[in-house]
Every structure is written in C-alpha cells, then in structure tokens.
C-alpha cells in the first residue's frame, strides 16, 4: 500500500509542493529513498527510523521505498523528515489520514522524536495556500511565521507523538484559520534620530530626497564627520513598508533561515552594512543551492556600504546589474535561482587616502593618489548613484547656529507626503528612482524655464543620457517634496548639484 503525504520545498524565493510517497513491501528490511535528493535528505532515513523507534513504535522488518515527487528537481533541506515519518507510520497503519490532499506536513526530526524548525516556511505555505491546502502541520517554532500567511489553518507541533495524536483526532485539526496581525512594533524604534545629527544641512537634505524617491546615495567626506551616522539614521525617515513589501522581504529571510520565534516577520525596512571584506558570494548570494546574499536581505531597505573604495572592485561591480534590475539571478549546477534585491544603496567614502581632500590645509595626498583612491570605485557603479554629496567638518559657528535640529519625525512627515504624491502619479508601488525611461516624459514634466536650464546643463556638463535621466528623476523627487506638479528651474538646479563629484 502506498501512502502519499504532501509537503513543500523552496526553489529560489518561491515554494512548491512535493508529494512524499511511501511504499511498504515484503523483502529485505531497509529504507530506500529516491527522487534526486541532496545528501541531507538522504540522511533523513536514519533520523526518521530512530525517531519512530524512540516514539514508541516498532518498524516492521519490511522494505520501505520512499519517493519524493516531482523527481526532476534537486531537493535539499531537512523539512522532509516529518512527512516521511508520517508516511511510514501511515503505511504501518499507526495513523489514518483523511483529506490528505488538503493537508501539508513539514518539519525536521530529532532522534528523540522532537520536531525542529525548518527554513523557508513562509514561501512553502504561500505556495500551499495557492494550491488549495487547508491545514498545515509545521514545527511549533515556525508557527507564528506560518500564521502570517493568513487564511490557512496552522498547527504547530513539538514532537512526532503530537503529530500522531493530532492526526488520530481530527477534531484537533479544526483550529481557527486566524491571522496574526503583523508585528506591532514601532518601525522606528531604536534608530538614530536625525535630531542628534548636528549641522550637515546638505547631507540631511540629500538623505531626505533619497528617502522620498528611494534614490541611491553616496556620502563623501573626511573621517569623523558623521557619514555613517547619517546613513544609520536613514531607516528612520523612510516610509514604513506596506504588507506586500513586508511579505516580500520576509520570504527572503525565511529562505535564508533568519526568522525565529522572536522575529518571525520582517516589519521594518532592513538596514544592512556588511564589512568591506565581504566575499562576492556573500554579497549577491551563492552556494551549491544558492542562498540569498546580503543584497537580497536588504530588499526594500537600505544596503549601506561604508568605506566604499575598500571593497574589492570585483565585489562592487557585481552590484551593477542588481542595481538596474532589482533582482539577481544566480545560475548553478542545480538550476537558476532568482532573488529579489530592490534595495537603496547608501555608500560612504573618503575622498583620498588621508581623507581630507580638497582641503589643502590638511590633505597631503598627491593628485595621483587621490585619483587612484577614487578610481577604486568603478565609473559604471558611480553612474548608478543618483545623489552624491559631501559631508564636511562642521565649523564651530555651524554647531552653534544649528543647535536645534529637525527630528526624524518631521523629515518623515515630508517624505510621506512626497510618497503620497508619487503613488498618485506613478501608480501604486513605483518610486521616482524606479520610473522607467518610457514613462519619464509622462511623469517628469518640465516647466519652460526648467527646460532651458536642463538643456544648458546637459550641454555644458557633458552628461550621458543616463545621467540626464537620473537628473530628471531626482528633480522629480525634489519637486514632489516641494509639492509642485511640474518640475521647476530650481528643482533641476538643485538636482544638478548632487551629481557625482568624483
């Protein structure tokens, strides 16, 4: 008799359903597993055997054949332990399942029969919901994460015995398909507030524009002037994520195995600042069955690269394509995996090895050294940075005169207003920085005087077409912050002052 159990696995960022088929037959006693399995899946036979034994059941000396279908996709991960165990128990007649096509089982087993947490619950359950699954039996540790899917009954179990108990008593399956409200923490708690950042009017302004239009941003300046501090305060002025964005980002974290009982959902925009020794694989994702990299974990949030020229050039240049597309496709032997990586790049760097250029009082670097230092960041990468701004040492008068600083809340208010205007004009989820070239004419309408300024600027500054489009997008955001429908002269001019200064 063949018993079939539905379970799920992750491919890239999406989940798909897998059928576990268990057959018990006469023959030499052993457990055979087939279906293009990774080594951790093959090992699960041993875990399952011991877990069943320690659960108090006796496995009869028969030949078990287990197939994981579809057989064409390579399977990894430890989520198949529990369904295989249930399948064996069912073929032994220990449990009985009705409505098996409406039930999904996933979980890792310990030798003592304990059910342990698994990776990728969120995408698996999303796929299950799509396929019409009604009940999911998953490890208790993943329950909250699973409940975020909503509209599907989730049962968290701690041991194999629990699972058997629940399956034998169908009344227990009738839990409420309730939906956990999204984590109700203040999205801005614990983030540096802008009111603590003294002076730096230009950098603050640039941060505000970047937050409003989701533009990439580069801070250049001497050490100790607050580049990193402003960057770390930036999540505090970004508008909160909507549910779709939250789910999108949480999926990445789920696949990466970074969700747990405490943090079972990503409700605030991620802020990641990898050290400059990061490897290319860690940055963009990699491995035999690729895991999402740091850029994918920063999805819908900020990727902050401090000391930009210290990163390996090869590593930095890997960002070029993801910055354009908002997703990355990693090709490996096991297949092509696509992860989202729609992040805002915030970078900080010194202008020269000593850090003080062009302040002739303090900088002793030669022109060549300066050139070589800034040359470590490739031109094409700089070309994708919309706003470039210098962070300078405050003079004492500045510290004095700017003592009362705006708080993040005030700035956020303006940013949200600008976001609202963008949403009304661009459509639901299109930030200004992501306006496609085809729509630029429609969304970025220039006043006549602005047109002439832009034209003059374009010809006098030897701009590229991409540079010009970037100028328009930034000017659009500035106009949005200003509450203007059309882009005026001053918006274009201000946008122009933020262009790359290297």
């Amino acid at each position: 008799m063949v018993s079939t159990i539905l379970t799920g696995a992750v491919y890239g960022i999406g989940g798909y359903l897998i059928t576990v088929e268990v057959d018990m037959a006469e023959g030499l006693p052993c457990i055979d597993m087939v279906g293009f399995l990774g080594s951790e899946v093959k090992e699960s036979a041993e875990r399952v055997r011991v877990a069943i034994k320690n659960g108090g059941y006796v496995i009869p000396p028969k030949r078990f054949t287990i197939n994981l279908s579809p057989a064409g996709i390579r399977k990894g991960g430890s989520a198949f332990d529990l369904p295989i165990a249930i399948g064996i128990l069912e073929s032994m007649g220990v449990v009985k399942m009705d409505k098996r096509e409406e039930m999904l089982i996933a979980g890792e087993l310990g030798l003592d029969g304990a059910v342990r947490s698994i990776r990728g619950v969120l995408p698996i359950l999303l796929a299950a919901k799509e396929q019409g699954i009604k009940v999911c039996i998953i490890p208790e540790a993943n329950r909250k994460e699973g409940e975020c899917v909503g509209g599907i009954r989730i049962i968290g179990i701690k041991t194999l015995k629990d699972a058997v108990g629940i399956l034998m008593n169908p009344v227990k399956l009738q839990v409420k398909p309730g939906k956990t409200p999204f984590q109700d923490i203040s999205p801005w708690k614990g983030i540096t507030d802008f009111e603590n950042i003294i002076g730096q009017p230009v950098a603050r302004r640039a941060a505000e524009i970047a937050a409003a239009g989701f533009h990439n941003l580069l801070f250049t300046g001497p050490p100790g002037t607050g580049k990193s501090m402003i960057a770390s305060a930036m999540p505090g002025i970004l508008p909160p994520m909507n549910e779709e964005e939250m789910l999108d980002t949480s999926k990445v974290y789920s696949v990466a195995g970074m969700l747990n009982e405490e943090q079972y959902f990503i409700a605030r925009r991620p802020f990641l600042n990898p050290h400059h020794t990061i490897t290319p694989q860690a940055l963009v994702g990699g491995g035999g069955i690729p895991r999402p990299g740091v850029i994918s974990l920063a999805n819908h949030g900020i990727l902050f690269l401090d000391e930009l020229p210290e990163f390996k050039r090869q590593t930095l240049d890997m960002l070029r394509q993801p910055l354009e597309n908002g997703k990355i496709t990693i090709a490996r032997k096991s297949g092509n995996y696509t992860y989202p990586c729609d992040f805002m790049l915030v970078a900080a760097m010194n202008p020269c090895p000593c850090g003080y250029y062009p302040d002739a009082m303090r900088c002793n670097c030669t022109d060549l050294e300066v050139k070589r230092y800034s040359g470590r960041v490739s031109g094409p990468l700089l070309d994708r940075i919309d706003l470039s701004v210098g962070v300078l040492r405050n003079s004492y008068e500045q510290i004095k005169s700017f003592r009362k600083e705006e708080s993040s809340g005030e700035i956020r208010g303006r940013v949200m207003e600008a976001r609202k205007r963008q949403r009304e004009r661009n459509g639901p989820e299109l930030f200004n920085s992501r306006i496609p070239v085809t729509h630029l004419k429609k969304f970025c309408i220039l006043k006549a005087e602005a047109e002439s300024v832009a034209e003059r600027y374009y010809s006098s500054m030897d701009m590229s077409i991409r540079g010009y489009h970037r100028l328009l997008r930034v000017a659009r955001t500035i106009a949005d912050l200003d509450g203007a429908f059309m882009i005026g002269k001053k918006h274009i001019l201000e946008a122009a002052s933020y262009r790359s200064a290297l």
Partner: protein
Amino acid sequence: MKQEKAGEYINNERKVNTKRRKYIRNHMHTAEKDGKMTKADEKAWHKECSYGYFWESVPGIGIKTINQLYEQYGSYEKMYRADGEWGLTERKKDAFFLQKAKWNVKEEYNRLLYNKIWCIPMHLCGYPDKLKEIHRPPSALFVKGRLPEGERPAVAVVGARNCSPYGKLMAKELGKILAQNGIQVISGLAIGIDGISQRAAMEHGGASFGIMGCGVDICYPADNRLIYEQLSAGRNRGGIISEFMPGTKPLSGHFPLRNRIISGMADMLVVVEAKERSGTFITVSDALEQGRDVYAVPGRFNDPLSYGCNRLIDQGAFVLYDANRFIEDVFERYTYRKKRKPCTGTEKYLPITGTEKEPVFTVNEMLTNCEYKKECGKDVFGGLEAEILEILDIQYVSVGDILCALEGCSTSEILAALSTLECCGKVESKGSFYRKIT
C-alpha cells in the same frame, strides 16, 4: 637560401649602422661644441663614454670611487683595463669583476645609443661645467634629447605638485617669459608647477629640460607624457636628463637627489608655490649651497600653498615682483658667472624661434592680461549668486561655510544657485567644495 638571408641581414645591419652614425654626428652638439672634433676624436670620445657607462653600471661603486680612480688613471678605459689592480675594498672588486663578466662594453653602449640615450661621464667634454662646481656632481648624466647650452642662461622653476589656480597661472606666465627671452627652463617634469612651466616654455618656442628621478627611458609621471616625448625627441625642444641608469624605477629616494641637479644646472631658482613642508625646500637648500640665487613668487598670506614662498621671502629670498627686473637679473647672474665675457646687452640672447624679442609683461600686467579678475563680473547674476561669488575664493570653500555666511537662505536655494554658477563656468566643484574659476 640561408646565405641570401644572411646577406640581407648584414645589409640591414649596415644600413642601421650608417643611420646611427649619421644620427650621432647630427645630434651630438655637446660633443661638437667647439666644432673642432675630428672623426678620430669622436671615436675616442665614444669609447671613453662606453667605459664610463660601464662604470656607472657597476652596483656598489659610486661617485666617490669613480672619481678617485679616474684621478689615479686618467681614463675610464684604463681604469677598466687595470683589472682590479687598484687599492679598493674586496667588496668593490668583487662587484667590478662580477659586472665585468656579464657586461659587454661595446654592445651595451651601442644599445644605449640605439635607444637614443647619451651617457656623458663627468670627466669628458660635453658634461655641463655648471654641474662640476656643485657638491657631489653626478658621475655621469644620461640624456635623451640634449643638454642645456652653456651659452644661454638657465632658470630652474620648481613648486608644488598640488598647486592652486594662482600657482598654475604663475607657472604658465613664467614659462612664457623665460621662453620669450631665450632663457632655458630647468625643472623636474613633475605634475603641477614643474610640468606647467615646462609646457608653457615649450609652447612659446623655448627650450626646457626635465631632470628625472628615474631612468630617462621612463616617463614619470605618465601625465606629462606629451612634454616628455617632445623633449626627448628633438634637439630644439630640450631634453630629458637623469643621473640614474636607464630602467631605474622612480623610487621616492631618488627625487631629493635629483633636486641638486635641477638647481645645479640653473643660474637661478624660482619657487612658484610651496606649502609649509614641501620637497621644494630641498631644492632651495641645494641651490643656496651651490651659490644660486633663489627667487620666490609672492603669494597670498592666508593660502597654505603660498606659505612656503612667503616664508622664503621673509628669510631673504628675492621677490619676483617685476618680470623685466627678473629677466635682467637672470642675465646679470649669468654673465657674472661667465666672467670672461662682460654683458653687452641682451641682443645676444635672442629668442630661439623669433628674431626679435617680444614684449615682456610684468607680473602686474600678467594679472590683468590673463583676465584673472575681469571675468568674475557680477552684473550677470542676481542676488544670491552674486553673494555667493563674493564669498567664494580660488581656494575651495565648503557648502557648509557658504550656508553659514548666508544665514536665512535654505540649503536647496544655495545648491541651486551654485549649480547655476557652475553651469556658467564661474565656479567648479569637488565634492561639496566650490571655488571660483579664474
């Protein structure tokens, strides 16, 4: 078949050799300077040069040893033939024999000439007299192009690499007036003041000489490749000179050494711009030690790049405030050094290109002529832009400072105004620093 090829090869070789000989005869003015050198003399001279080149190449044997030996034997060849019979340390002997074993004197020298590089050892004719006077003169000079003429005055122009627009302007003008007066410019071919003055001299038909801190076959810095190629190619333009063997890398230790040649080859040293601590001062102290006058271009008192020059003036350097006087001074110095011929006037030193001396500007005139101040007309711009232009300087000023100075203006307004100015070419930016363009 084989024979034919061999014949062809020999023919080619012969052609090359004839060409080379012709080149040598045409280009070797320093050797021909009294015009009396016979063919036999030339041959002997080249032979001596080739042995001089060998002695240069021996690692561990330096200026002092070579001079000592030369005094003893009176010829580089004899020194070589003496085969270590001289009373020197074992280590030096070892070095000599080792080098002798792997160095084919004739072949190496021919290769050198083939690359159009001259090696002029100190004790042979052609070596500049001025250099012989200084402390520790280089034991040989490697030259691409030619050496400065002894018949014309030469002025060394040095200064900061990382110079201000003011320094650039001064270097340019200085190069120009020196060229127009037929004065040779000697400098270090570095980025900044050195290169700019040499380039200006070149553009106005003057001769200039780049003293390198590396082998003459290496163009360092690569930014000045244009000047390097011009100087190393033609006899009129000037030359590239170095005391280091061809192929020597530009190591930082070489540059202070070459500074003594810069000042040594010149009659006078002009410092255009220097910071408080600058390599320029090595050249200055070399020049003073060698008895060369030092001129400084006055700077502005609050400018760190002018600090060095102003301090030099404070310490008694001549002030370059009037171009005519400066030129006169140069010739006076030059004739004083020559002693033999009293100064008869400047007609003798015609510019290299023109037949007549062009009018020379004074520094003040220079300032007005180059539209240094004129350009920044405020009338074109309204309120804020004009105010910003008032604040800006030719030194970089940060946006923060501008904001501070113009209280009540919003950041975005000021950034927009700065963009307007930049768009019109009135200011230039680096990061969030802005400065006026002159």
